[in-house]
């Protein structure tokens, strides 16, 4: 089916080109740059026509198309200044600049056709947190090729670590290590959030190692099931953790969750000297509409940058190459002397580390760790980001995470409203969010298993696999 769909798409493509006066041979003879421009222009026209046909036209579509084209079409990566190859950083820097400035222009942007208004800043903070998680899962699924269906467990562990180290949960203790925004005489353990984030990461990574050591020797789908099991057990422990084993040990405060959790902050000295906000809850607005969300947003950008840096560096390291070798062929990798268990455990621990940091930051942003935030669907949601964007490709995963978070929190209801307005129907689109993610999983796996922005290597693996005809299909394929 995949082949048939692709064949019909490419057939339509060549027919369209021929209709434009560009038969196959002339197209091949064109310079690469011009081919890129024609391709991009054609796609833009198709998308714009589609939007107009759906009757959700808005002039801002032109602007959005222009920005996307400006980033995507020119071969920025080939740009040189003198002898320095600066091209590789142009697009990331442009995207970063757009992101950092988002709190200033986000609310002033016009509505887009079909998608409606641009996402609110709070959604962008969540998107940043999910980006960290998706990049963390990418270590496990994308690099090492291990399917993890219980990633939400690490998310939950990070959030609860924040609850233990930065709230009044343990009210018999009284400890304050650089925490901000406490009222005098506050009980409980309060570390500065900047310490809590790495602590949560380390705790979660240790949990990942403990979970991984016995289970990582299992292959493929068995590992997926075991991780799913842990992903179901840990939230249940969190829900029942207010009197474990009939005792009065209260670790998690049961179904009510741990709240409030301290905000991050830089303290009074840094505020006086460097104008950094002493406490995020009382942050000045910095000229944006909402200072609280803005500082949380900029902080999450920094965290995401750190995650991207670690992802890229680890991918190219000896360890990262070992992960990819295991993904491609476990037996061959073992034969080449790669210690399978240790390498896989490192992938697991690294993924868990970033999941834990993201969880702790989420808890701090929401000011609480609630057991109902952590369920199986979230694991699949994060997996969907990695798969849609492109397993193993950092930029693809980031795109998948931001886009799907937006869809989940605002996009679906916006699109639903617009479609219902135009067609006079009454479909409650957000009700079907997980079915839509399920459909994304199926469609991506069937039509483009390497994702929208694949890493070249991963794409090759999938296509080699697909072209390797099994014997019992040979008759059908040959016919």
């Amino acid at each position: 089916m995949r082949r048939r769909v692709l064949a019909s798409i490419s057939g339509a493509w060549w027919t369209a080109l021929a209709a434009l006066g560009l038969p196959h041979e002339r197209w091949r003879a064109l310079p690469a740059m011009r081919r890129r421009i024609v391709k991009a222009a054609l796609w833009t026209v198709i998308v714009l026509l589609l939007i107009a046909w759906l009757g959700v036209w808005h002039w801002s579509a032109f602007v959005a198309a222009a920005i996307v084209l400006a980033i995507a079409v020119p071969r920025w990566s080939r740009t040189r200044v003198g002898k320095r190859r600066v091209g590789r950083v142009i697009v990331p820097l442009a995207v970063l600049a757009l992101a950092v400035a988002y709190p200033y222009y986000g609310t002033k942007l016009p509505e887009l056709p079909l998608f409606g208004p641009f996402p609110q800043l709070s959604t962008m903070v969540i998107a940043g947190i999910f980006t960290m998680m998706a990049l963390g899962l990418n270590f496990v699924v994308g690099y090492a090729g291990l399917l993890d269906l219980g990633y939400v467990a690490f998310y939950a562990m990070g959030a609860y670590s924040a609850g233990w180290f930065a709230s009044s949960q343990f009210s018999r203790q009284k400890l304050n290590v650089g925490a901000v925004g406490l009222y005098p005489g506050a009980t409980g353990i309060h570390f500065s959030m900047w310490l809590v984030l790495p602590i949560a990461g380390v705790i979660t990574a240790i949990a990942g190692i403990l979970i991984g050591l016995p289970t990582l020797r299992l292959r493929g789908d068995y590992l997926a099931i075991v991780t799913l099991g842990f992903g179901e057990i840990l939230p249940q422990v969190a829900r029942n953790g207010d009197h474990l084993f009939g005792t009065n040990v209260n670790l998690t405060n049961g179904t009510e969750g741990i709240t409030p959790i301290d905000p991050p902050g830089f303290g009074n000295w840094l505020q006086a000297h460097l104008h950094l906000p002493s406490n995020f809850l009382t942050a000045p607005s910095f000229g944006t509409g909402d200072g609280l969300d803005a500082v949380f947003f900029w902080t999450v950008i920094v965290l995401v940058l750190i995650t991207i840096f670690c992802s890229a560096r680890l991918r190219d390291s000896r360890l990262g190459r070992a992960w990819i070798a295991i993904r491609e062929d476990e037996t061959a990798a073992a034969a080449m002397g790669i210690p399978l268990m240790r390498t896989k455990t490192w992938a697991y621990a690294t993924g868990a580390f970033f999941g834990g940091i993201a969880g702790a930051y989420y808890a701090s942003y929401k000011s609480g760790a609630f057991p109902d935030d952590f369920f199986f669907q979230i694991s699949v949601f994060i997996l969907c980001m990695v798969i849609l964007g492109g397993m193993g490709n950092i930029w693809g995963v980031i795109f998948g995470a931001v886009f799907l978070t937006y869809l989940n929190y605002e996009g679906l209801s916006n699109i639903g409203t617009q479609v219902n307005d135009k067609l006079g129907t009454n479909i409650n689109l957000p009700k079907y969010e997980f079915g839509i993610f399920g459909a994304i999983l199926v469609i991506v796996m069937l039509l483009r298993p390497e994702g929208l922005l694949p890493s070249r290597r991963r794409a090759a693996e999938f296509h080699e696999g697909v072209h390797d005809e099994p014997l019992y299909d040979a008759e059908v394929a040959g016919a």
Partner: protein
Amino acid sequence: MPVIAAMLLVALGLWLAINLYKGPAYFFTIFFIGLTNGALYALVALGYTLVYGILELINFAHGDVFMLGGLFSATMLLSAFHLNGHSSTGVLVAAIVASLGVAMVGCGLLNAAIERIAYRPLRGAPRLAPLITAIGMSFILQDVAIGWKGPGYTAVPEVLPTGKVFSIGGVVYTWEKFIVVLITVPVLLALIWLVQRTKQGKAMRATAQDRDAAAIMGINVNRTISFTFLIAGMLAGAGGLVYALYFGQIRYDTGFELGLIAFTAAVLGGIGNLPGAVLGALLIGFIQAFNEGLQWHAPGSNWTQSIVFSILILILVFRPEGLLGERTPEGG
């Protein structure tokens, strides 16, 4: 390691014995509940084990096919036959048999269609690809149920008679539990006959052993796999009807939760092994019932899921071939 396992088993036996001593009547009531649940789990677990045996694929969507079967039979019992607590026995039997047939055929076709759409195109792809589409299909089916019935429970009135069949030491074994067994056992016997005695069953076993060799011997592998999915779906449909009748309420996520329990049962018995799935299902049914029902130091229903998954993890880590053993890549 065997020492620890033996100690755990002894502790478990001791706990059961003390509970039996403290309240024998109560113990047997719980025992019958466990037996009934186990029979129901067996229907679903067999579907997992059939598909895993032939494709080495965990069919995540199986639990949701079961759920749709339950919703479908509930609708049919209510709308087509207008069953209520006062329906006569004749109407009841006719309604159940008719719904059973329709639910089984419907779920069988649905399951085969899922295989055709979501798994067959990925036959040559990496092993994780069909697993991911299976998860996707599971979510899609749940949303089909939400779109059809909404997120709330669909209730079925208590139509099954609750008189007594027999009693042990004052504990009454009631008809509604017996009917579950009465539907389950013939279905299981028919399945065993199909797999062991018919030509199609032989083809299934051959395909499960070695797909390429089976193809060389002239077995139409794709059709055999479709047939296996059809059978698995029919079992799920029967399970759905039994669930709707016995528990009286069903909703979109019932299948996911019960599916995971049933999958655990299949793994416990030895995935790919049909009698193993039934044994595992009965064991899981007892474990769940004892955990939720017994009074002396039982962890309670808050912990059921954790206990079931702990069993799953322990089995997969220490004895991946399960109790009765089927040599899997992990266990071999």
